[in-house]
């Protein structure tokens, strides 16, 4: 593919126009991995596979998809191989090849890299890859405008080849420049660049005069640039073809220019970095690929193309080749603060300061360990208890091993640690990692949080404190508590410690799990008490269905079939079947042990459903129920099953409290109320009430007045209500019995 700028001055293109290549430097990504499943992602590149930009885009793209929810998806790659191959016949054949190849394996998303690939897709979309959403990438803003309007399901983020900022940066790095030399080539594409620059540069109002070396044969051009000297800078997008009609890979062409030039060379494409150019404002192709990969992942997740909120362009950053800085004796003070400095060979102290500190840290830790071992040996000699000895040994070893120190030099993106937390025992002398490598060893769900915590602390010069899961190479998961501080004296860096807190975290998670299990267990045991009631609930509709079906069968034996009555019977069977299914669905939810899922809940409805469930039980116990529901819907954000558990518990408790009184007096009042920002549900019984001394203890675990109770029902109710940011309390009624009242926050609209 190609991502190239289309100069803004280019006339709007017509669809039938021959494809032209835009640019060089790009990519190629070897297609790997055999496809085994339908779906997948197809990447169509404009140019050939070995262009450096293509390779970098591919890296960013695979990286983005691998860290998305679609990590395992198949990725296919195709190359249009512009400009080596072009023409209408080639294009038709290529389209038909794609059509045949992907007929049984239609991709879910197509990525088109570069303007040529996008134009190709737009021309053939009516027949090939019909209806498959597409993501474009690496296309210059100006070219993209010439292709508007794009179909609604073709989206992407543009690239800005910002010659104005690049030239501005060059002039800033080289004060006293008198002449800006602009080099372009002879191909159509090169001419478009030339037109763009000729139109745009004068408008910048630059102090130096501008000289154009356009469409020269390479030999002459190289001789001309060799004559440049102090007071000159060169800007070039390089070229595909020189004035003698010879073809070039733009990166090779620019490398020759830079090698020969007596003045620093600036360029718009990041793939030229390392080929001898001094720098420029440019987007990294890895970023371009990553951005497109994220868009593709969103589409794969079912996002509507029109609903994506995409930035206008992939951000460009100042990039400088440090070797060129030295070559052209640029004052380092003039390099922008946020510039990415490449190929810098640091001084010994610069390079090793953090390592030395890290060594010191390791030595300190080793000293601690040695002292600990010595102490341990002394203790071992003294103590007779083998058990105490081994416990001590383990705790010392663990203490010594679980802590590590780390330093992240953000400016150079180098990360050292005394221990990789990976448990692989790599010493501090190991090569530093990049921060993205550190992030790669973090659980995907925690990556973004760690990244933003670290970068946030760096940006604000603050401390940060975070817990995350690290993934060891063997797949084991460890909980790490990291704490760091930004230091700004020499470049931005974070220093801190990391502690393996897996045991504590496991205990916390286990406690939460236990709590959930206990909640579930009490719910299921409560349902056990209700088994008769539940059986009744299910048997009623079954009885009605059976009765209706048998009546129908009998009627069919008669000569005069009453069709209307048979229809009514069928309707009744269907509605009773629905009733049974509802009972099973509601019960299933209560028996299931699920995660907490908040949903919009109408408590009036919840009260009615819960009463359905216990009606038979209450009938058997001769408890009469009265309901007073709020007229405004008492709506909360709640977990249906858990709040139903609370209600069930309160209702059964109320019924239990009335066991000892005359059946004629057993009356339970259940009411809901909306009051300002809160909703309450109260359960009022007419029972014996609660002894004043016990009022405080009813919610304590293992407190029960029932001979057969274990006393966790109300404790669990209270923990459920607290988890809903509500309160549960109890008071004795003035006349008889007690009132349990659950108050929850009212759900706000929206």
């Amino acid at each position, binding site marked *: 593919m190609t991502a190239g700028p289309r100069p803004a001055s280019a006339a709007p293109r017509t669809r039938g126009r021959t494809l032209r290549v835009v640019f060089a430097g790009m990519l190629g990504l070897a297609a790997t991995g055999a496809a085994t499943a339908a779906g997948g992602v197809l990447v169509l590149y404009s140019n050939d596979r070995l262009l450096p930009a293509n390779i970098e885009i591919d890296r960013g793209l695979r990286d983005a998809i691998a860290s998305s929810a679609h990590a395992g998806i198949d990725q296919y790659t195709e190359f249009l191989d512009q400009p080596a191959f072009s023409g209408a016949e080639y294009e038709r054949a290529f389209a038909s090849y794609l059509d045949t190849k992907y007929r049984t394996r239609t991709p879910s998303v197509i990525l088109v890299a570069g303007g040529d690939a996008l134009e190709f897709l737009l021309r053939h979309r009516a027949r090939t890859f019909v209806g498959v959403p597409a993501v474009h990438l690496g296309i210059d803003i100006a070219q993209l405008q010439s292709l508007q309007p794009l179909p609604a399901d073709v989206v992407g983020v543009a690239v800005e080849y910002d010659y104005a900022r690049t030239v501005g940066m060059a002039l800033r790095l080289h004060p006293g420049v008198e002449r800006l030399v602009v080099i372009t080539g002879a191909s159509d594409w090169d001419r478009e660049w030339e037109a763009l620059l000729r139109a745009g540069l004068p408008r910048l109002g630059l102090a130096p005069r501008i000289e154009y070396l356009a469409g020269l044969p390479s030999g002459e051009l190289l001789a001309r640039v060799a004559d440049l000297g102090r007071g000159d800078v060169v800007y070039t997008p390089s070229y595909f073809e020189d004035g003698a009609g010879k073809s070039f890979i733009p990166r090779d062409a620019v490398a020759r220019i830079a090698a020969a030039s007596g003045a620093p060379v600036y360029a718009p494409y990041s793939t030229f970095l390392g080929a001898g150019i001094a720098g420029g404002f440019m987007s990294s192709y890895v970023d371009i690929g990553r951005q497109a990969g994220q868009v593709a992942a969103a589409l794969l997740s079912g996002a509507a193309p029109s609903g994506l909120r995409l930035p206008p362009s992939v951000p460009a950053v100042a990039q400088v080749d440090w070797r060129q800085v030295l070559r052209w004796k640029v004052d380092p003070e003039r390099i922008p603060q946020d510039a990415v400095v490449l190929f810098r060979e640091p001084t010994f102290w610069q390079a090793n300061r953090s390592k030395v500190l890290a060594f010191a840290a390791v030595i300190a830790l080793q000293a601690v360990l040695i002292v600990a071992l010595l102490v341990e040996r002394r203790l071992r000699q003294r103590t007779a208890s083998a058990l105490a000895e081994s416990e001590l040994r383990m705790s010392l070893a663990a203490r010594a091993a679980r802590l590590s120190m780390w330093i992240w030099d953000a400016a150079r993106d180098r990360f050292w640690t005394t221990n990789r937390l990976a448990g692989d025992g790599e010493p501090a002398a190991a090569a530093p990692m990049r921060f993205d490598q550190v992030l790669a060893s973090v659980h995907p769900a925690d990556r973004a949080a760690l990244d933003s915590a670290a970068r946030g602390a760096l940006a604000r010069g603050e401390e940060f404190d975070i817990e995350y899961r690290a993934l060891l190479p063997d797949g084991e998961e460890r909980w790490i508590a990291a704490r760091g501080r930004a230091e700004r004296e020499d470049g931005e860096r974070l220093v801190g410690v990391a502690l393996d807190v897996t045991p504590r975290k496991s205990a916390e998670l286990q406690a939460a799990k236990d709590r959930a299990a206990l909640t579930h267990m009490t719910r299921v045991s409560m349902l056990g008490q209700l088994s008769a009631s539940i*059986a009744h609930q299910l*048997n*009623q509709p*079954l*009885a009605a269905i*059976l*009765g209706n079906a*048998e009546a129908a069968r*009998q009627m069919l034996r008669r000569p005069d079939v009453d069709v209307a009555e048979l229809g009514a019977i069928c309707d009744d069977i269907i509605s*009773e079947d629905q009733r049974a299914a509802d009972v099973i669905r509601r019960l299933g939810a209560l028996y299931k042990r699920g995660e907490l899922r908040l949903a919009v809940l109408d408590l009036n409805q919840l009260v009615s459903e819960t009463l359905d469930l216990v009606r038979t039980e209450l009938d058997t116990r001769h408890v009469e129920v009265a309901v007073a529901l709020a007229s405004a819907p008492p709506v909360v954000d709640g977990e249906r099953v858990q709040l139903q558990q609370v209600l069930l518990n309160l209702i059964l408790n109320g019924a239990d409290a009335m066991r000892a009184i005359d059946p004629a007096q057993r009356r339970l009042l259940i009411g809901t109320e909306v009051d300002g920002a809160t909703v309450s549900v109260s359960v009022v019984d007419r029972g014996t009430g609660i002894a004043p001394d016990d009022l405080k203890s009813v919610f304590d675990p293992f407190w029960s007045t029932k001979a057969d109770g274990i006393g966790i029902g109300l404790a669990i109710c209270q923990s459920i209500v607290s988890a809903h940011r509500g309160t549960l309390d109890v008071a004795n009624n003035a006349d008889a019995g007690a009132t349990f009242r659950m108050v929850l926050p009212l759900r706000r609209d929206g």
Partner: protein
Amino acid sequence: MERVFLVDDDAAVRKALARALRAQGLQVEAYESAEAFLARPDPAARGCLVLDVSMPGLDGLELQRRLAGTGSMPPIVFLTGCGDIPMSVRAIKAGAADFLTKPVQVAVLLDAVRAALAADEAALSARADLDALQRRLATLTPRELEVLESVARGRLNKQIAGDLGIVEQTVKFHRARIMARLQARTAAELMHIAARLGIGRTGAD
């Protein structure tokens, strides 16, 4: 026609069972509660009560208890959606004809209803027979009653004459009168009637 009083608080169940029983040719009166059944216009009408056990207000077992108190208890077939053994034992001990669990097949319900009605019918006619016998017994003179008791105890005419201080011929005369009044055609039949009336069983030597 066989009549069924169906009492169930669940409208859908009530409707379905009424349909099914009617389709089998039974006459069905359906009530939504025990109270509604008690308030029906003709309390003495005979029929089989098909009764749901658990209902709000007066439940099935309670209705059974009340009907027993009135002395005119119809045969009852209980239906329950959640029957347990103690509940069914209680119901049967209190005189229920059957105790079925929902969902119930109509054939089973029909058998239970018919058996209950037949048993009720038999019980009714047995009671009517006994009533008639007792009315006849009441027409015997004290002396004839004495003779009947002795006959029922298996004493011979001669022994009875000795016991009562009368001649054997008079005993024979009494026996003929007794057989005529009790409408017994043979001596064996007389013994049977006496047994049904409980005569001669108590006060035996």
